Structure formats: structure tokens, C-alpha cells
């Protein structure tokens, strides 16, 4: 019994669980261990190689972990991701030359989703950028972080300092009970006048101390739920993970559920839904090109992207809802009658909806919600309907909104 030949290449037939999330780290190097490695093993995590590291793909099971996160709170170790600090005079302009975000208009303590673009408007990576007042804090994908660092070093002026926080870990606490759990941890704002952690709004960030240990916390995540991402020193991460999991509302969650949660939330995964061949407009990420940048341009690939923003892209990322139980996976072809109109870039079984879902790119003529399409899976034509993303509504915490 081996993973099917279609879809994503699998590097190790014993790793039956994770072909979708194994990224293109094809070098046959020994995986590195992250600060929580022993913690995951002690917690019963099944460890697989991912982005060059040993990472937990699941503990008790993907469906149980997925549903736990949707109803309570899940703790994810995402320490494989790259945490970068960009500082120095002119950092705003230097970063705006590489990203389409309006950073000049980003207030300290706020973060934005952004894209590292190449000169053709292709996506080199997607990332979060936080203004921390005297510097910018970037969180980039684990599988692409070394390429990102090389790209940034090459293109940032010498006056700009790029600091890789390679001894920091990153935890995500996600789910409807995340805020109450984090609030009960007794965090102290690092600076006078900063709000309590459960008063942060979605896409806000601040610095805190937990028992004297510094934490950088943002209200953000990759599940569609309310939640937080916590940058923590490597030497403190195990104690913090223990303290969070001591709350009965919290369980550790593996990469498998992280992938199914983000798929339901309609959030793209770099290396699968996004690549250098993908531009932000066809990817449905036009919101990451802020208003001022649309009028001024001045970001890589603006000559390609601005006309696409004005005229629309010929191909679009869409959500696809399947009937039955057979899942369509990455690489499956999408048809409108006999015409090939696109392909699937992410797909799997949705534990929340209880049927298979997928994302893919189709010709714009077929991208309207309600369009009936077919997906070829192992020679069978599965009925699929284009649906609006996300599949499961986001439940981000908006200040002032009823709780």
C-alpha cells in the first residue's frame, strides 16, 4: 500500500500521511530538530520531515484535532517558519520596493498579509509583516525562508539590517477559546499603555512578558478562527507550551489539521496554491495590494499586476465543493463538459463540512460561484461546484463586534 502516483510527489513511502504538506525541500538532508522536538514526541506526536525539520503531523488524529480547534483551542508549533527583523533608516521604502503592502500607512502594533513578488509579478512567498515601531517583523514560510533571506539580502540596501531570529520559536493558539486561555496566563504588557492580550483586535500585535519571559504576540492565524501567534525564545518555548496545554481547553494540533483547517478557511498554501507562476490577482489576493500602492505602483511586477487589477485575470483561484466522499487532490484536472479549464492545487476531506473540498485555478468564465464542473480523479469524473471562499466562515475577533 503506497500513496497514489497522482498529485504531490512523496519522498518517503512510509510517510503516508503527509504528501500534501511536504514541500519542495528535495535535498536529501537530515532533518533538523526544532526546540519543541522532545515535547512533541512526549506528547505522542507522529513526527515527519517537513520543510527540512522534524514536525508533528498529528497526535490523536487529524479529524479530532481539526474539530477540537474549531470548538475549543489548538496549539500549533510553527517554529519552522522564518522570523525576520528588518530595521534601519529607510526600511519602509526598502521593503515597499519588494512588497505591494502600504507599509508607510501601517501603524505600529499592526500587521498585514503581504507577498514577496518577483519582477514578473509572480509570488515568491506570502508572509505577515508587523510594524513594531522601530523595525518590521516578518514571518515567512518555512520551506521558502532561506530563499527569502537570500532575496531580501540581495535587494535590501546595505543600510538596512536583516536579522533572522533563528533561535526563536513560534506557537499559534487558535480557536474560540484561545483568547480566554491566553488571558488567564497572566501576561504583562511590555510597555505602559499596551492593551491586555485579549483586547488585541484582529491583525494587531504587542509585546508581553510571561513570568519575565518576552513574547511577541499577534492576533492572527491560519485556521480562520480567532487566535494568536506567539513569538517566543527557543529556551522558553517548552515551558510556554506546557503552561498553555495545562488548560483543559487546549490540545496540541499537528500539521495535518493545520492544513485541513486552512483549506476550509480558503487560505492558500505556498508551494501548492501559490508559486512564482501565480500572480496576486489570479490568486484572489488583490487585497494585499493596498490602495496607495495601486495608484503609485513601485513594487516588483507592477507593470504586470496593475493591468490585471484593472482588467481582471484570465484565470482565478476558486473553491470547489464535491459531492460524495472521494477527494480530489493537488494536480487533478478540472473540466467543463469536455473542456479542460483548470487544475486542483489543494484538496481533501473537510472534517467540518463532512465532504471533500478543494481549491484550484479555473478559467474566469468558469469561476462564478454555482458553476458546475467536473474533476478527474483516477479516471472518474467527480461532480464539483464552484463555491465562494471560505468554505467555513472566518471567526476573527473584530473590536466592537458582538462577542
Amino acid at each position: 500500500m503506497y500513496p497514489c502516483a497522482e498529485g504531490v510527489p512523496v519522498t518517503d513511502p512510509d510517510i503516508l500521511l503527509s504528501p500534501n504538506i511536504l514541500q519542495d525541500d528535495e535535498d536529501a538532508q537530515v532533518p533538523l530538530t526544532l526546540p519543541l522536538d522532545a515535547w512533541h514526541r512526549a506528547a505522542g506526536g507522529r513526527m515527519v520531515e517537513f520543510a527540512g525539520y522534524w514536525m508533528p503531523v498529528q497526535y490523536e488524529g487529524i479529524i479530532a484535532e481539526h474539530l477540537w480547534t474549531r470548538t475549543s483551542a489548538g496549539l500549533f508549533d510553527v517554529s519552522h517558519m522564518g522570523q525576520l527583523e528588518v530595521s534601519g533608516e529607510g526600511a519602509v521604502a526598502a521593503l515597499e520596493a519588494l512588497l505591494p503592502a502600504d507599509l508607510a500607512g501601517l501603524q505600529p502594533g499592526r500587521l498585514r498579509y503581504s507577498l514577496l513578488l518577483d519582477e514578473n509579478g509572480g509570488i515568491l512567498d506570502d508572509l505577515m509583516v508587523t510594524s513594531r515601531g522601530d523595525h518590521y517583523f516578518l514571518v515567512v514560510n518555512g520551506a521558502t525562508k532561506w530563499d527569502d533571506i537570500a532575496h531580501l539580502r540581495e535587494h535590501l540596501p546595505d543600510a538596512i539590517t536583516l536579522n533572522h531570529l533563528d533561535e526563536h520559536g513560534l506557537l499559534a493558539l487558535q480557536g474560540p477559546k484561545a483568547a480566554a486561555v491566553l488571558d488567564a496566563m497572566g501576561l504583562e504588557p511590555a510597555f505602559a499603555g499596551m492593551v491586555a492580550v485579549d483586547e488585541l483586535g484582529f491583525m494587531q500585535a504587542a509585546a508581553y512578558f510571561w513570568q519575565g519571559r518576552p513574547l511577541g504576540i499577534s492576533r492572527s492565524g491560519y485556521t480562520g478562527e480567532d487566535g494568536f501567534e506567539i513569538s517566543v525564545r527557543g529556551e522558553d518555548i517548552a515551558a510556554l507550551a506546557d503552561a498553555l496545554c495545562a488548560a483543559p481547553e487546549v490540545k496540541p494540533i499537528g500539521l495535518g489539521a493545520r492544513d485541513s483547517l486552512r483549506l476550509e478557511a480558503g487560505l492558500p498554501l505556498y508551494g501548492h496554491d501559490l508559486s512564482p507562476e501565480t500572480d496576486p490577482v489570479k490568486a484572489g489576493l488583490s487585497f494585499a495590494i493596498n490602495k496607495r500602492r495601486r495608484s503609485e505602483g513601485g513594487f516588483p511586477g507592477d507593470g504586470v499586476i496593475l493591468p490585471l487589477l484593472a482588467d481582471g485575470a484570465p484565470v482565478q483561484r476558486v473553491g470547489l465543493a464535491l459531492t460524495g466522499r472521494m477527494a480530489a487532490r493537488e494536480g487533478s484536472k478540472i473540466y467543463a463538459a469536455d473542456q479542460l479549464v483548470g487544475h486542483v492545487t489543494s484538496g481533501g476531506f473537510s472534517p467540518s463540512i463532512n465532504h471533500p473540498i478543494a481549491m484550484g485555478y479555473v478559467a474566469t468564465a468558469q469561476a462564478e460561484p454555482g458553476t458546475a464542473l467536473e474533476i478527474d480523479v483516477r479516471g472518474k469524473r467527480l461532480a464539483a461546484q464552484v463555491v465562494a471562499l471560505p468554505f467555513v466562515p472566518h471567526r476573527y475577533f473584530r473590536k466592537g463586534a458582538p462577542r
Partner: protein
Amino acid sequence: MSRYFTKEHEWIEIEGDVGTVGISDYAQSQLGDITFVELPAVGAAFKQGDAAAVVDSVKAASDVYVPVAGSVTETNEALEDQPELVNTDPDTGGWLFRIKLADLGELSVLMDEATYKAYIAEL
């Protein structure tokens, strides 16, 4: 009755010239939550090692290979509504299909239960 195993983690239980095929407990634990099983058509003929079924987990689809050549006589219809039987009861209720063996001699290349247990202990 005797049970044999493949290196690819299928089992086959032999009764006369009919074998019942499933995947091992080790295999289901590696795959995680199984959400769908694509079963072969009754009457379909396979050579030893052919892919005859697919088990879909949340993460991945995996081929199930035929341990010995033969033609399918029956499939486990319970899996249509309860694919999770492969997780909860892989050795009995989660069987996949039955096959009429073309050549009992092919069993000689398979492992018995003790050998299979030693094999997975090394994985």
C-alpha cells in the same frame, strides 16, 4: 484459516481458494483518519501486486495492492457509509474485498504474522 501479510501492509486471510484482503493495523495507524475507500468491481481480475483499491485519508490517497492474483468475488459494502471501519477494525470488520485466488503458490512470497510483526518493528 491462515493470514499472510505483504511488505506494503496488506493482509490476506485464506479460506479454501478465497482470500479476504484488508490493510494492517499498522497501515491504518500510519494513514490516520480514513474518509473514503474506492473498491474494485466484482469480477475484476488482478495480477499479484496490482493496485486494486484506494484508501483516502484526510491527507492522502493510497493504493492497496492485491497480495496474490485472482478475481474479486465480493467487496465490503459497509465501507461505503463507514469508511472509518478501516481505522477502528482493520483486522476484521474493515476488510476491503474478497478474491478468488488464481495461484495459491503466490502465497509463498508473503509473510506470516510473526514475520510481519518483526518487519514493522524495524520500520
